[in-house]
């Protein structure tokens, strides 16, 4: 597949419909990814598509149920997806850098368990927060070090820690349930931010999204994430500290998951060992829907924001139409497939068009189709 892509890029520089410079100055490995505008343009197009999808979902939702476009419903919609949204931000960075973190749901569960156990032991809440943050950072650091320093595939590592961290939650809590959290904290699941209809978790998500967007799109650190996702070896030879940056990303993901764990626990006012089971796949689905390439090197935080809207809107519309709650995976999975098939279909069409152009070029007997070219 890489071969086709490379050949395609080589051709793209010669076909007139492509802007000169897009792909010309790069040395292979790219399919419109990497490098300035070449990276941004397809991302913008993807986001335009997402905007259309979000609007379509809003229209569909409001026609299905008059409750869809109410402030109250928006609150619920945000509330149910706040934690997933928060975890999607670092996940986007990790996938852009060419790795994946499937352990986020278990880090969430483990943080929830630590919170529950320590609260049951009458620790002061602030100290618990510190411990939970450290636990999240440690969980991420273990992932990151195993991936970068030992050199293991992140898929395998994080499947392992998915089981390990959930297992630790199970050991800590067992069948116990801790539920008597103070109202001031559990209010995150009931009360909106003053003067708005936004739940606190979504408020936090928006602030974090702005920070992540700035870091990813406007700092050298962010650019280096794209570079290593495009070609880790080249990034390393270019002097980027690939291992250190990737480890940092995993740690950030761990801390964000711990934060999500705290919010999750307070929202439901329960710490149980299976808090957040199955959320990792939701998070990955959102990030891929956002237009982040599973191969790395491509994607944007704006896309993640829109994907969260689309995902939450769709789940919510299904909820209002009394669709079987357990079966929403059907829709999530479908969405995931669509989001990977659409760009592939576009690439497929483009490669056919290119093949047609190449064929017509070989047949100068048809003047209507052959283009006047200097370089052939």
């Amino acid at each position, binding site marked *: 597949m890489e071969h086709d892509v490379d050949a395609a890029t080589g051709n793209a520089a010669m076909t007139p419909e492509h802007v000169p410079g897009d792909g010309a100055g790069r040395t292979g490995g790219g399919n419109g990814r990497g490098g300035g505008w070449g990276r941004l343009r397809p991302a913008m197009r993807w986001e335009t598509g997402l905007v259309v999808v979000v609007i379509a979902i809003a229209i569909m939702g409001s026609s299905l149920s008059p409750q869809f476009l109410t402030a109250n419903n928006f609150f619920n919609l945000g509330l149910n997806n706040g934690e997933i949204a928060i975890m999607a931000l670092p996940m986007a960075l990790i996938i852009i850098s060419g790795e994946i973190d499937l352990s986020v749901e278990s880090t969430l569960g483990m943080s929830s368990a630590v919170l529950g156990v320590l609260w049951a032991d009458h620790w002061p809440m602030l100290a618990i927060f510190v411990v939970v943050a450290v636990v999240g950072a440690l969980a991420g650091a273990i992932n990151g070090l195993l991936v970068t320093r030992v050199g293991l595939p992140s898929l395998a590592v994080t499947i392992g820690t998915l089981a390990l961290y959930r*297992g630790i939650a199970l050991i800590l809590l067992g069948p116990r349930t801790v539920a008597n959290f103070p109202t001031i904290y559990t209010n995150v699941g009931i009360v909106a931010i003053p003067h708005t209809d936004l739940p606190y978790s979504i408020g936090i998500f928006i602030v974090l999204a702005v920070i992540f967007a700035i870091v990813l799109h406007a700092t050298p650190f962010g650019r280096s994430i794209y570079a290593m996702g495009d070609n880790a070896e080249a990034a390393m030879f270019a002097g980027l500290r690939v291992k250190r940056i990737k480890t940092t990303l995993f740690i950030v993901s761990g801390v964000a998951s711990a934060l999500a764990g705290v919010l999750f626990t307070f929202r439901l006012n329960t710490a149980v060992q299976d808090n957040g089971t199955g959320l990792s796949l939701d998070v990955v689905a959102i990030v891929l829907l956002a237009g982040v390439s599973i191969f790395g090197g491509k994607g944007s935080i704006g896309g993640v924001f829109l994907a969260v809207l689309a995902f939450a809107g769709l789940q919510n519309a299904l909820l209002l139409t009394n669709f079987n709650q357990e079966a929403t995976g059907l829709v999530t999975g479908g969405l995931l497939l669509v989001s990977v098939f659409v760009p592939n279909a576009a690439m497929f069409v483009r490669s056919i068009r290119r093949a047609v152009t190449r064929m017509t070029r070989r047949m100068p007997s048809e003047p209507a189709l052959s283009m006047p070219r200097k370089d052939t």
Partner: protein
Amino acid sequence: MTATLAPHREPGSPAPASSRRLADRVFRIREFGIVAVLVVFVAVTASIQSRFLSSTNIQFILVDATIFALLALGETIVVISRNVDLSVGSVLGLSAFLTARLASNTHGLPLPLVFLAGIGIGLLCGIVNGLMVTIGRVPSLVVTLATLYIIRGADVLIVGGGQVVPSSYYPSFLTISKATVAGIPDLAIVVAVVIAGGAYWLRTYRSGRELYAIGSNPDAARLAGIPMGRRVFTAFALSGAIAGVAGVLWASRYGTVDSTAGTSYELQVVAAVVVGGVAIFGGSGSVVGAAIGALLLQTINSALYVLGVSPNWDQAIAGFLLILAIVLDRLISLRLTASLRRRSARRGA
């Protein structure tokens, strides 16, 4: 194998015969390592709690491990080709429910037909996965992640809140998993034969060897003229069909089947495969290793139970073992690369 696991380029390629002998030896050591861990584990557990080696307990472990090892067989075929099938748990669940309902609604239906139905359901899912991976050119991780959701969702829609209970089957369905020959479950014998067949195919047949080639270096495999699409498609179809059969066995073993059967089983299967020495990035590993990996994980679960360790520890231990296994695998492959490099350097000098 070295091409997959070693990040550094080989300075010169060693003669194929010697490298194969070396690789063979490491393979043998690797499987030997898992067997050794298994033996030590059984010995220690049995010395603490003799009940562990009671024939009933052994039968239980073998039957559970059998279903597990069967899934590991399908997963290994896929993983060797540098893909992954995360949908096996959902396929198992769907097949388990549909065949269980078939077996309880239509008494008198011959058992082979029930199995055929299971294979058909699984095959269909596998074909869908395979087509999307090969023709759709979507990474298998994404495809099977999506079908994991979709098949489970379909399962939930079909099953609703219902379940099939053991009393509704005709008796012969439940005895599939209980019949024994000389104390060994029939099922274990049949599956052992199937796994041996799978191992023989992968080792000996051209189509099997080509899966290793694809997983080891896809570009080289393509240039060598290997029909990659067809092979990978076959791998997914096989994995699906096997998960379908495993669903029938699951229904027979546990009796009660609802929409949650086999949930998150896929990760355990991947864990067994990786513990069994199959490289997650393809090109290396054996079906027998994966089967022993499955047996080991199952034995550990059972041993913890017999030793009175709280089942709360199961998952953490499984996760820890998985990580340990891939770390060891990495260290072994690094050592192998180093020794190959030394060897070729000597030859060059």
